[in-house]
């Protein structure tokens, strides 16, 4: 039977000359009220994607009111001065749009997705939810109750429990990155409508915010519509003061174990401190991380734990973007019976990154993968918005993506060793295990 299936061997074709990655150049302008706009017209599909980024993340939650930024974001689409919650949502839904806000640690992001046919009405709706939300008491109470349920439900997932312990262990509860943007049960219970209204007044301002918009439109006409939609909105958001990074970050290695008695797997996290998104080392760090665990299957961690041992469905590592140094984490779920051995293998891979130089071959493969996949990162309006928003939100150079290939090419074996020593050294990292048994002593 096999012989029936034998076919001639064709030699593997060698790839030709790679296309030079071309990154689209958007236009940048500022509305009369100070709102910066980054716009890119493309007419391949009748679709528009937009994101408004405001310095209104959970890092600026009032100390006694964790969860404010998130709840304010959710309430934007729960009624405006002119429209009740249900009228507003009927408008959005009847346009076939999606419009919603969420808060991360650093920013609030309002995302809009539209059919090109409905662009102008859509921009008007975007402006009205951002500028004149009415925070109706009934909707405040309903969303408060929903948030409390969501806070409870998320702890049903062992992976969430692990993530929460990582943030707290790396940053400490005193740092905004050590707390969940969604807040705490106590905080959300006590949160007052007045606090939300004041948060919106102070932080949702055109100066200091940026709108990124990509899709099927005429830039001049779209700009005129923005001017009229956002007229009447004015002012500058207060600067965010971040507390300094707590000193215990450099303390010796620690382990946290949380029992999850019926799980068949252990959720594992090995985590530490990373870099600010704007760091000149971000690109070398991305290369170093790619080699270790940025790619689930070909990264060293995946090749070892999944492809060689079969202990997990996946293992990856990654840096979190932040205005301040974010976290860096290795994450996986492994069969409970191999928990301790998996931790040992991960640690061995970390040590290998720190103690032995990577090969030029590995460096070239990682660099090519990052550079040549760039056109895909700009393929759709949604992905393009996301890439351009990163540049604006973290204050990167306007030509960041144009220069990205060149900067990746400049990364050396020594750069990777330096990043590995700073970020991957096991003695600087926290280990979190959520599973049926503690790995310690086994």
């Amino acid at each position, binding site marked *: 039977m096999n012989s029936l299936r034998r076919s001639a061997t064709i030699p593997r074709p060698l790839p030709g000359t*790679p296309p030079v990655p071309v990154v689209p150049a958007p236009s940048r302008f500022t509305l009369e009220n100070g709102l910066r706009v980054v716009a890119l017209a493309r007419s391949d599909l009748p679709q528009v994607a937009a994101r408004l980024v405001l310095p209104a993340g959970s890092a600026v939650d009032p100390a006694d009111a964790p969860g404010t930024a998130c709840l304010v974001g959710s309430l934007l689409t729960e009624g405006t001065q002119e429209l009740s919650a249900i009228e507003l949502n009927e408008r*959005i839904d009847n346009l076939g749009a999606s419009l919603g806000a969420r808060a991360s640690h650093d920013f609030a992001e309002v995302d809009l997705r539209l059919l090109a046919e409905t662009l102008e009405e859509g921009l008007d709706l975007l402006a009205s939810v951002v500028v004149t939300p009415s925070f109706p008491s009934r909707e405040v109470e309903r969303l408060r109750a929903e948030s409390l349920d969501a806070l409870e439900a998320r702890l049903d997932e062992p992976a969430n429990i692990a993530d929460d312990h990582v943030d707290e262990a790396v940053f400490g509860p005193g740092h905004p990155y050590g707390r969940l943007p969604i807040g705490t049960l106590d905080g959300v219970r006590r949160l007052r409508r007045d606090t939300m209204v004041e948060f919106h007044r102070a932080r949702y301002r055109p100066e200091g915010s940026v709108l990124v918009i990509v899709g099927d439109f005429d830039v001049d006409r779209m700009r005129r519509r923005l001017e009229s939609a956002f007229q009447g909105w004015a002012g500058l958001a207060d600067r965010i003061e971040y507390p300094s990074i707590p000193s215990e970050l450099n303390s010796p290695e620690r382990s946290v174990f949380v029992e999850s008695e019926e799980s068949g797997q252990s959720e594992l996290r090995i985590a530490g401190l990373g870099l600010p998104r704007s760091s000149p080392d971000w690109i070398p760090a991305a290369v170093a991380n790619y080699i270790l665990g940025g790619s689930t299957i070909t990264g060293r961690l995946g090749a070892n734990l999944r492809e*060689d041992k079969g202990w997990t469905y996946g293992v990856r590592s990654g840096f979190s973007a932040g205005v301040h140094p974010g976290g860096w984490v290795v994450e996986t779920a492994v069969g409970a019976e191999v928990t301790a051995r998996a931790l040992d293998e991960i640690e061995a891979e970390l040590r290998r990154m720190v103690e032995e130089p990577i090969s030029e071959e590995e460096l070239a493969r990682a660099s090519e993968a990052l550079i040549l996949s760039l056109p895909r990162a700009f393929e759709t309006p949604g992905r393009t918005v996301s890439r351009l928003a990163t540049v604006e939100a973290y204050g990167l150079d306007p030509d960041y993506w144009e220069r990205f290939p060149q900067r990746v090419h400049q990364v050396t074996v020594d750069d990777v060793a330096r990043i590995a020593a700073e970020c991957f050294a096991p003695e600087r990292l926290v280990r979190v295990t959520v599973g049926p048994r503690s790995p310690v002593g086994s």
Partner: protein
Amino acid sequence: MHSKLKRLSLAHETAELSNGLRVVVHEDRSAPIVAVHLMYHAGSKDERIGRTGLAHLLEHLLFEGSENCPKGDFDRLLERVGGSNNGSTWLDRTNYYEVVPSHAVELALWLERERMGHFLPVLDEEMLEIQRSVVINERKQVYEDRPYGMAYERLHEVLFPVDHPYSWPTIGYTSDLEAMTLEDARDFYTRYYAPDNAVLVLAGDVGPGAGFEWAERYFGDLPRSPEERAVIRNGHPAAAGRTLVLEDRVSFPRVYDAWSVPPYGTDEWVQLDVLSYLLADGESSRLQRTLIREAELAQDSDTYLYPTELAGIFGIVTTARSGVSADQLRHAVDRVLEQVADGGVTDAEVTGAIRRARRDQLNSLANVEDRAEELAYASTVLGDAGRLEWLLNRYAEVTPAEVREAAGRHLAGEARATIVVLPGEEADDE
């Protein structure tokens, strides 16, 4: 056309090689990338009782190297040219795809040739043991250890008779995965991984001239399958109206309702899809508005419609707020369905639902990877990639009367399956 939508077009050319491989080329020069997509008309529906999970386990094995491409090289070669690749298994089909910069299309085609023509010589026990373990871990991570993670498996067992191939899960039962042998993998591969059971789609920065020539060069000499493939025609039998209650380590009750409905590609399927958007996509949709906003009974309420071949599967999933019982939720969902079936829906609601469906279609057509998959899927399940364009444009013609009738005919009454998940101790998984 009340929703005033532009007509969507997805120009492509098709050809069939002498060994039965169907080839579709969709040219779009807007970015220097090409999606190479191979879809085999085999999924978990083609498994037998006692060997569930075979199609998916085999998909894992097919990433482990081939006669001329040792383990690991597959990914490394693609990585080196900035390509990505993946595969997936579902009820009716298994797919493998690469997205590569335009200079590396032939590399991707060569790798797929290796997968179709040069796999059996490298298949061995060690490879099987490792991937068996990976898949059992996948089952734990994605299903068993997840809150509510076993609900869909149970739901399909209740919805379909035990011998219906949609009644078992694509991931497979653990005992079946443990029992799988090399011979099982070889048999399935020999029967289904052949040019006459596959569709190749090239989408992006490539024209039909080069596309068809390359298809011939890399696949033209591969033989048809020597094995007969059974044609499965189970239709969409009505469910027995059963309800099953599960306990799980969760904080809130959740109710899953499902109906077996007409398959993908039919007029009725499109009407049901519009109904699905009208019921639960967007905060003013019927279920979300009634259950979440007005009655404050639910945290979330979603609908879905599987684009499956033997039968479509329509589902509604609703999670209770604290203090709300599963029965209250079930009654509230039923009342909404009755209102739609008895009282009908408005023009504005249908227009909004059609537009939201279009929004999601545009999202998936915006990248060549998904566009290639959609074309491959239409070709595999509907027999013609051109049916996709028809289907996408059919939405704009759906009327309120059709939506109401679809709700009345397919979702009213007792012919459904229901799983209720309650907070408690998780039962043993098997």
